[in-house]
């Protein structure tokens, strides 16, 4: 990184006006669909609903304090963390392995690349129905009771997500691999590196920016996962798969809308914190080619 101080470029009034004009559409969209709803959320978080939402009473920031330290929120947070831990590391490892396997010049390799990336094209709903059938304990493929077993349900839901995200991981890692120059890998081969050493010492460091991106995206996906939980377990059995997002959905009723708003803000803050942490901790270890 250059340490030289960057001089702020000077723009003429005309240039500034043009720049602003070009930004207006995105500003409008963000204000309408993100910033204003978010401010609404902060606002609703300070009200408690009475008589099934017939009227709302101002309770202030106490509601934030109470709810964010409450048993239910902590349980949801723990389930979300569990889900992230179950889905992200295997997702990245499998994505790397598949991409490495498919990154070679062979006749027909495009067919395999298309197959491996195909889960990208299937919706969460389709994936969930598929796994719902796989897990069914009488007609299913695996014939297991995981979805009804509180100890296994989170793992089962995670499996479907790993499968769902595999296409994305594969495509992103494959794109990363294609930026690694052949000659660098050949140089490593002549230096005596075996395939594993080459992967760990050369390839992975060179695609580390891609891996960081994948990590951040998968963690966010994990924290926001909803449909697979809703379709496979409805948060059950006995709330064993109630992630934060699922709880927010459950609370999103007139009688609980204030609490739902508090949870949403909580999830936003957690997601932001985790993402910032990932960048600040890992960015130093990532090699960006210049």
């Amino acid at each position, binding site marked *: 990184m250059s340490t030289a101080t960057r001089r702020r470029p000077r723009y003429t009034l005309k240039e500034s006006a043009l720049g602003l004009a070009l930004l207006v559409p995105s500003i409008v969209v963000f204000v309408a669909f993100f910033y204003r709803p978010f401010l609404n959320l902060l606002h609703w978080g300070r009200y408690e609903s009475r008589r099934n939402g017939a009227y709302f009473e101002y309770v202030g920031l106490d509601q934030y304090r109470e709810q964010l330290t409450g048993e239910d929120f902590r349980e949801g947070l723990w389930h979300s963390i569990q889900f992230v831990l179950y889905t992200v590391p295997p997702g990245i490892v499998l994505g790397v392995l598949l991409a490495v396997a498919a990154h070679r010049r062979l006749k027909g390799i495009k067919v395999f690349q298309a197959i491996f990336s195909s889960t990208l094209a299937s919706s969460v709903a389709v994936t969930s129905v598929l796994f719902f059938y796989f897990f069914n304990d009488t007609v299913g493929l695996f014939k297991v009771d995981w979805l009804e077993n509180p100890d296994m349900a989170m793992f089962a839901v995670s499996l479907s997500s790993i499968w769902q995200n595999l296409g994305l991981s594969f495509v992103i890692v494959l794109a990363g691999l294609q930026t690694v*120059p052949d*000659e*660098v890998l*050949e*140089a*490593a*081969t*002549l*230096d*005596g*590196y*075996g395939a594993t*050493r080459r992967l760990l010492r*050369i390839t992975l*460091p*060179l695609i*580390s920016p891609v891996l960081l991106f994948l990590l951040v995206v998968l963690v966010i996906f994990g924290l926001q996962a909803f449909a697979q939980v809703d379709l496979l377990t409805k948060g059950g059995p006995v709330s064993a798969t109630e992630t934060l997002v699922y709880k927010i959905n459950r609370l999103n009723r007139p009688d609980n809308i204030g609490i739902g708003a508090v949870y949403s803000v909580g999830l936003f803050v957690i997601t932001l914190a985790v993402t910032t942490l990932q960048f600040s901790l890992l960015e130093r270890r990532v*090699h960006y*080619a*210049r």
Partner: protein
Amino acid sequence: MASLTFENVTKRFDDVVAVDSLDLGITDGEFMVLLGPSGCGKTTALRMIAGLEDITEGRLLIGDTVVNDVDPAKRDVSMVFQSYALYPHMTVQRNIESPLLVRKYRADGPDHPARKLNRAERDERVTEAARVLGLVDLLRRKPAALSGGQRQRVALARAFVGRPQAFLMDEPLSNLDAKLRAQTRLELVDLHRRVETTVVYVTHDQVEAITMADRVAIMSAGRLQQVGTPQEVYEAPANLFVAQFIGTPPMNTVEGALGDGGIETGGGVVPVPPGLAGRLEVGRKLVVGIRPEHLALTPGGQLDLAVRAVEWLGHECLVFGTIGDADAVVRQTGMADVRPGDTARVAVEATDVHVFDPETTGRLA
């Protein structure tokens, strides 16, 4: 250190023959340059030595060992790539150290088993290589913070540090500017003289080839055209391809036929070189080759040159024109006393005339 031997080696990519029945012996300690235009198979030949390409037919030997099926990591050769192929995420120190990490060496003398080097031994060798190539102050930098010439030297250091059987170099100077290239040429020759290890050097630049090589192997369309010292291939090119590939500007060629008093061409009669006299029947069609510096502008010359352009380069002068209907160049020191549009007489000595067969393009004399 070791010799390298191609025995009837062929490489096919699907239907394309990249290297066709190559027979070439590179002796131990030799600086061999593989020279040819792009697509001639020289890089493929080099990559077969490294083991980066499989051999379709024939045998390749390093020393006395057939290495067709030996893993590239086990061949004990190092390579300098055109792009240098440095590891961008490692410091210069770690780049140079890289070949020492995995390989085993007889560091305790020839009677002891080979082992991996320890940290101190690796550091010592890296420092030595860095010292030789003037990289000591750069060891902690990463390749992105180096100039092209510095990167190139890191690539050389990485190749030399492991003391392999042979160094393979694939156009290592082509990414340098002209001045640095000339300087690095000298440094490479110097380095080779010091380490006395076999070098196989691939280039399309005939200047690099004739200035650096012990011997040059000239290739075209997958086939070996001629092997010899730079003087041999310059003074007695084996065929028209070699004749025109070596030398700048290239050798002038003009078609003619053997007559009573010499070789009759469209621009005049060329004297018959000593080796050819009496060997061929009169009337035989020939291609005459004369190097630009062997043509002299003189009123008593045997040939007519229709002058088209004169280029003065300071230390020499190039006169472009046509002899008969063939393009020709005359090269002389100092300024030429002719102008575009003139017809000048040019002379050539019989000993400087090359004669080729128009059918086979092979050398006759």
